[in-house]
């Protein structure tokens, strides 16, 4: 199974509840039911907004650290000589910027079943 954006949108809808400003009769019977859910569209916009903020930050060259998850780093790669593996022809690979991710120790340990990893 693959976790995709639609799974995230669904979970954000399940978790985010807003207080109902208009008091209904429901309020007295089931106070926990008296709330407003996000529409699928709005939840989708919010999840997109989160990834847009992440992309914009990384594109500006700033790293992002999420404690307990990991950090996204912008790395500079120097230009180098390479070869086209198909034709063997020499090519110059220009300098570029890429994003690398390093999982936090906590996440690495969880993935390895709680065993400490070096």
């Amino acid at each position, binding site marked *: 199974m693959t976790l995709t954006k639609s799974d995230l949108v669904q979970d954000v809808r399940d978790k985010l509840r807003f207080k109902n400003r208009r008091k209904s009769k429901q309020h007295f019977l089931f106070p926990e039911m008296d709330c407003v859910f996000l529409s699928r569209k709005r939840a989708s916009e919010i999840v997109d907004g989160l990834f847009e903020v992440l992309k914009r*930050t990384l594109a500006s060259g700033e790293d*992002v650290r999420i404690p307990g998850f990991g950090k996204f780093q912008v790395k500079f790669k120097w230009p180098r000589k390479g070869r086209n593996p198909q034709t063997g022809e020499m090519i110059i690979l220009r300098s570029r910027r890429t*994003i690398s*991710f390093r999982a936090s120790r906590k996440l690495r340990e969880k993935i390895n079943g709680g065993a400490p990893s070096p």
Partner: protein
Amino acid sequence: MNKSQLIEALAKEENLPLKKAEEVVNTVFGDMEKALVRGERVEIRGFGSFKVKHYDGYKGRNPKTGEVIDVAPKKLPFFKVGKELKERADVEY
């Protein structure tokens, strides 16, 4: 940027109260973490995908003392940058 700055930026971007933006950030990263712990892939179009890679154990050496040590097999999450982020991050300067 750290998590609280991300929460603030999201709150501003989407006109959300800070508390709700925090719930969104925790939900999204929590879900991605849980998927990876289950060994599942995560794929976010335009941003990137995560998968758990298995690394075999090998005999390594402590570069300082030269002693041989066994490196146990391990799993590490691997992130592949999505096309859009890759292109946006790779600006000429």
